[in-house]
């Protein structure tokens, strides 16, 4: 499908119609707002079925090649689908680590065999992916990964543990960063990158309870787990480069992701809706001067964020720091979202002190949960503070911390 203006407009109309007819109704349980929060079998089954439905209709990975399950279309089409998913408040497309990180990575640097083996099942939701980068003692210091993979003939024997493994207890595969050589001069050169099977002896994913009280990620233990050497992606010792590339997909620095709808976005409009339900000093809360100023500050930040994203596409307006806006994407958006959601709890007065389990909690504790859950995005994938280091060093040229 080419992307003429007419064809895109027609497609927009088609997709709106499809969404109206096919976006599932809210089930009788709270759905995860992000892919980091799939905590029950019930949620998983629901989301897997929904992803499969979207793919079957031809609306997932539309710009991926047809031989791997995509549609070979212009990326603009997927952009329209993703916007429509947001606009129709559709449940998230949950297999994010496969769809947005592993898939594009394989299309970029994988072998033909890898692509044939993995990509279609990522799109259909048949195979779930997780990521094994962070370790219990090395959250942000990725170069210091200690999980060992020792070659034994045509296998590697893996020992160690990974933490914050989102979807780990459900996953079929993991993108795994492990140390294959402890003797290299640079710590980075001893790392290798694997497309590792999860359902083998010696791999155990233990769910971790989160600050929200829910589950969604795991600590994953490897105890003499044997994985085929053919699982290596790239060269032995070339894992750091692969990991960095993965992070670029994860942070949205480069495009190619199958669907941007991995989080149900919560915006200022949602916060404005909540404004109708509360009072301060016996008057509608929207008349409160302090509240008004906080909302205006959020609106300025939201607008500046989205216009900056657009400005990144105008090279003549980015000559001083050419990649600064893209590299600050995660820093800007996740911190804004944190402040927005915190405000959602603040406006509730005493009710803001209730949580999900209380039947008097406003919207079932939606805002409190959203605020807590947002830490997944300001911590996961390189914390805000690591992002600040990256921007400081790579955009401004400041010395390494």
């Amino acid at each position, binding site marked *: 499908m080419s992307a003429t203006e007419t064809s895109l407009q027609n497609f927009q109309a088609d997709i709106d119609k499809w969404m109206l007819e096919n976006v599932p109704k809210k089930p009788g349980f709270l759905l995860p707002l992000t892919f980091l929060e799939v905590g029950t079998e019930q949620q998983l089954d629901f989301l897997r079925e929904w992803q499969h439905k979207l793919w079957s209709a031809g609306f997932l990975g539309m710009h991926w090649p047809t031989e791997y399950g995509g549609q070979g279309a212009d990326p603009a089409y997927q952009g329209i689908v993703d916007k429509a998913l947001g606009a129709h408040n559709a449940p998230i497309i949950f297999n994010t680590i496969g769809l947005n990180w592993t898939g594009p990575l394989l299309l970029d640097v994988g072998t033909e065999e890898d692509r044939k083996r993995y990509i279609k099942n990522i799109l259909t939701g048949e195979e779930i992916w997780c990521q094994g980068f962070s370790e219990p003692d090395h959250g942000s210091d990725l170069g210091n990964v200690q999980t060992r993979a020792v070659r034994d003939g045509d296998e590697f024997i893996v020992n160690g543990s990974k933490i914050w493994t989102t979807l780990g207890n459900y996953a079929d595969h993991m993108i795994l960063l492990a140390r294959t050589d402890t003797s290299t001069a640079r710590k980075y050169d001893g790392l290798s990158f694997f497309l590792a099977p999860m359902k083998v002896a010696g791999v155990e994913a233990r769910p971790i309870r989160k600050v929200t009280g829910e589950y969604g990620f795991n600590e994953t233990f490897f105890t003499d787990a044997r994985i085929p050497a053919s699982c290596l992606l790239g060269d032995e010792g070339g894992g750091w480069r692969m990991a960095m590339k993965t992070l670029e997909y994860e942070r949205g620095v480069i495009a190619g992701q199958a669907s941007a709808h991995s989080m149900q976005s919560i*915006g*200022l*409009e949602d916060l*404005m809706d909540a404004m109708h339900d509360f009072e301060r000093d016996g008057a509608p809360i*929207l008349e409160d001067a302090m509240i*008004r*100023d906080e*909302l*205006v*500050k959020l*609106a*300025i*930040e*939201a*607008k*500046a*964020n*989205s*216009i*900056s994203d*657009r*400005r990144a596409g*105008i090279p*003549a*307006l980015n000559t*001083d*720091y050419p990649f*600064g*806006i893209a590299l*600050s994407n995660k*820093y*800007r958006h996740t911190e804004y979202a944190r402040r927005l959601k915190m405000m959602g709890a603040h406006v509730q007065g005493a009710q803001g002190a209730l949580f999900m389990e209380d039947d008097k909690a406003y919207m079932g504790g939606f805002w409190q949960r959203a605020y807590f859950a947002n830490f997944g995005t300001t911590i996961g994938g390189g914390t805000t*503070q690591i992002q*600040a*280091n990256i*921007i*400081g060093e790579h*955009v*401004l*040229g*400041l*010395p*390494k*911390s």
Partner: protein
Amino acid sequence: MSAIIGSKKIDFSEEQGMLLDVAREFVKDKSPGSEVRKLLESEAGFSEPVWQELVDLGWTGINLPESVGGSGLGIAALIPVVESMGKGLMGTPLVSTVLAAELIRRAGGIAEEDVLEDISGGCAATVAYLDGSDWGGTNTGVSVDADGVLSGSKFMVPDAAQATWIAVVGSDAAGDAVVALVAGSDVTAQAQASHALIDLTKRASTLDFTGVKAQRVLSGDKVASAIRDYLLIGALLTAAEAVGSTSACLAGIVDYLKTRKQFGKLIGSFQALKHPTVDIYVGMEHSRSLVYHASSEIDDGPLSTEAEVACRMAKAKASDTIQYAGDRSVQFHGGFGFTWECDSSLFIRRAAWSQQQFGDAMHHRKRLAPLLLDA
């Protein structure tokens, strides 16, 4: 599309791109640090030959129609020029002049074309707006009688000493807002008292217009909206200038953090300095995005609500960002930062000046609230 966020338009024309390149080079060439320092002490605050070059480049008429000798490129074309001047802390009466042209053009009619021709031809002009310190006041305290004779004075009139034309905001006998066009030469030296400004690259005076006869008086239903638009465009141009100054301030901080050592380490490796510097950077990019967004929303007609929102957001964000940048620049330069000699002094002074032009961040956020929240 959400109502509260509204338009996300950002255009950047080929002309704007060329002007940005030319203006950056021009300012780099004409306003090096030594020249900025030299002009701080001068009476005029700017270099007459440089002003002439700038006039020859057509910048005093960039926003004006071709019929009065301008380039017809609108306010959008001024943004890259003003931003570049902010970056080089260049002293010039350009912003005062183009703002006067905008006010006169929007409040007046065909009869005012001669004044606009003067301006596009290089005569400096300014607007006498403030009665006192309140940007949110009515500021029509100068009365203009039926013969066009003024009574009362105006506070902090920018670049008044240079102005061939002064557009004085006041009111007529009926109490309606008017714009009196006064020839600068009609205001005697005794009636002018120059201010000691916090930003020494700027010049402003209190002017007593009592007894001065206006050359003509603009009245009628266009005046009120022209004044409103002048205030918004003034806020936008101040924001554009602030963005430029912020980027230069940031570059100065980064340079220092990359060269200064303490405890055997470059101080830029300390996150306590690095992370706030990143916040200055992100704030600067956000301000710049909002400034260019606002310039995309302005045309020759009365400003739309979208344009008003954009100008106010740009000013609020750019003011707070330059304030933060200037403040941190002094702090991060340590003992040196506390000295006159350090350029941080120029930036924190520019920040303090910029914040107070056309209303500070709080002024604009207060006015954004009904536009965003009560729609």
